[in-house]
């Protein structure tokens, strides 16, 4: 049976179940708007380790172990892990996976990694290949900042449209059997590039990709936005969020009533993060804490969850290339 529907979507015959989630964050995220929705808040961005990169590995290892422990499974029960982060050659993921010793496929989708992992997990589970898969993603503010921008102690002024990379990690266990919300459909995104070159304007760069995927998802599944209780994007920030609403309105789709961006849900105004949060962990920590709890308590029943990634590298923007972006979507229903 062909499970592909429309141009870019799949509808699962036996929708896999998100049986458990876990997250961990740094102190700044811990003081933000989602207090009480984190499994562990680190006292500082090093957590007693020698480097920020090591700390990021720890974040991912913690999130995966915690998610597996929460559903009373052993690491050995996990058939495969899909994970990724922002650092060159997936540095922190690889060191975390070295310790976890599970079959592993590394993903780079920038900040869309979490959804990319969930989407692939769901496909493999529905295909009958595996029983239990973990999808995880992490990012670390200082490690990302030093790789993509400037040294952390440099006295630079960030523009108001800039976003703050989240320190944290989230992991989900997706299973063939069990209790929890189900991944019912998935839409794989295309690379979209509207010519934005400013690496400080990642929300605006990614917004057209999110719009493309939302639009295609609605077309493929023949749904209307109100089918979902909420539509979430990963890390567009306030500027990107407003652009998504505007661009979809121009296409005749109104999502302003039930749409929010995870990047706008993490930091409060006083934390001076400017346009909001970004990074792989932005969507991961919000999904694995706040959103999952809302789904489990049936406060949300149907959501469309998008991971949005800007796929530039330090080399590409120094060579004045524009920022190619991507967005993947999964619908999660209780």
């Amino acid at each position, binding site marked *: 049976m062909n499970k592909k529907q429309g141009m870019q979507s799949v509808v699962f015959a036996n929708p896999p179940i998100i049986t458990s989630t876990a997250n961990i964050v740094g102190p700044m995220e811990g003081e933000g708007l989602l207090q009480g929705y984190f499994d562990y808040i680190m006292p500082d961005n090093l957590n007693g380790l020698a480097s920020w990169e090591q700390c990021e590995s720890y974040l991912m290892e913690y999130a995966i172990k915690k998610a597996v422990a929460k559903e009373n499974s052993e690491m050995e029960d996990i058939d495969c892990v899909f994970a990724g982060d922002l650092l060159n050659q997936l540095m922190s993921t690889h060191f975390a996976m070295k310790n976890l010793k599970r079959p592993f496929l590394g993903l780079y989708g920038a900040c869309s990694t979490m959804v990319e992992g969930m989407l692939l997990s769901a496909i493999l589970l529905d295909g009958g290949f595996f029983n239990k898969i973990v999808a995880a993603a992490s990012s670390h503010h200082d490690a990302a900042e030093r790789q993509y921008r400037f*040294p952390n*102690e*440099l006295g*630079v*002024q960030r523009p108001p*449209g800039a976003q703050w990379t989240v320190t944290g990690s989230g992991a989900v266990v997706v299973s063939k059997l069990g209790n929890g919300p189900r991944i019912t459909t998935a839409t794989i995104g295309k690379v979209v590039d509207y*010519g934005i070159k400013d690496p400080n304007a990642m929300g605006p760069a990614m917004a057209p990709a999110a719009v493309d995927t939302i639009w295609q998802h609605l077309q493929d599944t023949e749904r209307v936005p109100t089918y979902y209780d909420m539509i979430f994007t990963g890390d567009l920030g306030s500027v990107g969020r407003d652009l998504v609403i505007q661009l979809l309105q121009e296409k005749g789709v109104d999502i302003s009533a039930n749409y929010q961006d995870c990047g706008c849900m993490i930091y409060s105004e006083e934390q001076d993060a400017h346009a909001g949060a970004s990074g792989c962990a932005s969507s991961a920590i919000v999904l694995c804490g706040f959103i999952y709890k809302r789904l489990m308590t049936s406060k949300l029943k149907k959501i469309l969850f998008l991971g949005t990634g800007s796929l530039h590298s330090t080399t590409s923007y120094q060579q004045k290339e524009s920022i190619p972006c991507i967005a993947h979507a999964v619908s999660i229903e209780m």
Partner: protein
Amino acid sequence: MHISDLGGQNKKRLNYKIAQHRTYNLKKGDNMTNEINKKQEQTQEKMQQLEYQNKVDNITPKPPLFKNICWAFVVGGLICILGQLIADYFEGLGLSKKDASAYATAILVFLGSFFTGLGLYDDLGKRAGAGSIVPITGFANSIVAPAMEFKREGYVFGVGAKMFVIAGPVLVYGMVTAFIIGLIYWIRQ
């Protein structure tokens, strides 16, 4: 072989050449329309990009220019006043003006580095912007910050190699400018 055959052959050859020329011209024409289409597509894409950039510019919050300028003026001014006070102090101790300003520079560089080390200079820079980047304390910050950050990569490929990632261009173009001005000065003499 008869002469008329030759003519026939020549005719054939001529016809063939004409046909070849025609197809060549046709292909050339095709290429031209293709190129025109491509160019049109490119301009359309550029227009779309410009249009989108406009939308982004409209929606992106603008930096609070007046506030930023005030902060830069006050902080930059205070750093300079501090430098002047130090210079005056050393001059008061009996040093020449040149020596006193050299001492003041050294002390300011030390202070910039020190507060970078304490993790305070970037907090100042966040508000003051150019006010704390332009004075010599900012130069110290731009060298100490990467040196601190890359210590974990060792003293050679970390501290040593990365120390000047920010300040390097300033030094290079500073020296180039000095060289050019020196040259002009030398020619005029």
